[in-house]
């Protein structure tokens, strides 16, 4: 093996076998900011064979206190280009895949496909949840890092059936409730520490050395130099995500999908199978209901087993459309992989179009 890597190949427990695994390794790094830079610099120096880089930002003055690969003469340039140039000079044998874009639900599956490890070095919740879900669907472990002020988080999710980001934080916070670095500030050296830990975890996942930080969240506090490790277990439903959510935008604007009774009737007429939930009281349900309907009251919805399986499309009805809209909000949160439709005007409108119900 190359003398270049002599100081790590001579390590017992790593050796030329470990180096061969790095060379064969394909790692995607999402975000070339405070976390992403130490990750790509170390992985590139250590000889990871293929590095995918995703970012569309340009270098700005306020980046320089923590994004230490960039210099003053890089201001205004694309981060992707600067990183490519510097990393290419650092290690000419690395193969780079450049993605001049932000990760979106439209491009995520295509970009992630084929990588051995994904490194989440982003700075916002929607992209973190998107990476989580895409990695579960594709079966790729991902190395997570995130910052808040003087603190940082590190963990490895979706590694050998291990827990996921959603097992720790099931619901995506709004940007208002948890501020990011732009609003809250971050001490320049903290992303360097957390990003370097992410690089180490990536090497461990690729080579199989040591104990991967799977099922454990490391919370590092720079002010006290305390690192707390919290263990957590997988929540089975989170490992079974089969498709991306329709939106990863902030969940504040709770969008309720609605369907009018004419369109719904057309679906009833054509569909061989249909899932319809009637959220009225059992008394109301007994008086009249559609033949396909199953009665599930609004206040019982939270008690539906969280791992219950719903088909892709579920229709929800009540008397006038109010309770069904409320139910759709609740159900959509509990079962993000299904699409819930509230039937506009409810049973009142249904009876108006087919009076013999």
């Amino acid at each position, binding site marked *: 093996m190359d003398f270049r890597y002599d100081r790590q190949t001579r390590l017992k427990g790593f050796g030329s076998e470990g180096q061969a695994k790095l060379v064969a390794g394909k790692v995607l790094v999402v975000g070339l900011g405070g976390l*992403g830079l130490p990750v790509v610099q170390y992985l590139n120096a250590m000889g990871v064979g293929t590095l995918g880089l995703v970012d569309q930002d340009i270098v700005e003055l306020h980046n320089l206190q923590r994004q230490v690969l960039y210099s003053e003469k890089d201001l205004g340039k694309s981060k992707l280009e600067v990183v490519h140039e510097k990393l290419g000079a650092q290690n000419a044998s690395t193969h780079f895949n450049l993605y001049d874009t932000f990760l979106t639900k439209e491009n995520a599956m295509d970009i992630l496909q084929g990588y051995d490890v994904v490194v989440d070095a982003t*700075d916002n919740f929607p992209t973190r949840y998107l990476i989580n879900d895409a990695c579960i669907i594709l079966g790729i472990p991902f190395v997570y890092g995130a910052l808040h002020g003087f603190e940082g988080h590190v963990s490895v999710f979706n590694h050998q059936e291990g827990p996921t980001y959603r097992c720790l*934080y099931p619901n995506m*916070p709004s940007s208002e409730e948890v501020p990011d670095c732009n609003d809250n500030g971050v001490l320049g050296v903290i992303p360097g520490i957390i990003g370097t830990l992410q690089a180490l975890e990536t090497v461990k996942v690729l080579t199989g050395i040591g104990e991967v930080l799977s099922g454990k969240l490391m919370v590092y506090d720079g002010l006290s130099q305390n690192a707390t*490790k919290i263990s957590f277990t997988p929540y089975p439903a989170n490992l079974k995500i089969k498709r991306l959510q329709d939106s990863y935008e902030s969940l504040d604007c709770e969008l309720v999908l609605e369907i009018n009774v004419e369109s719904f009737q057309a679906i009833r007429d054509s569909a061989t199978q249909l899932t319809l939930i009637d959220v009225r009281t059992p008394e109301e349900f007994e008086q009249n209901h559609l033949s396909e309907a199953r009665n599930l009251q609004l206040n019982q919805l939270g008690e539906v087993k969280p791992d219950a399986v719903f088909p892709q499309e579920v229709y929800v009805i009540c008397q006038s459309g109010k309770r069904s809209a409320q139910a759709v909000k609740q159900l959509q949160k509990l079962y993000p992989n299904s699409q819930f439709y509230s039937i506009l005007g409810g049973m009142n409108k249904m009876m108006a179009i087919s009076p013999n119900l």
Partner: protein
Amino acid sequence: MTILLFGVTKDIVGSSTLSVPTASATGRKIPKTVKELKEFLGETYPELNKLSSLAVAVNNSYAQDDESIDAYDEIALIPPVSGG
């Protein structure tokens, strides 16, 4: 009962630790579960109620809402963080 605070919970409370009484001198209900602890803290710091996900660790393990807690447990509030 001492609670370690991380992330935005530290900012909300304005301190990195918080002490919760284990015997009531004021007639307030003493929290016996994780859920009750969240409610107890939420009364004093309503901003905590706004967090849509808040991990609570009891003795360094992620705890569900129904897990019981006592004076000897080491408790930490670990909200999600987003910076990068």
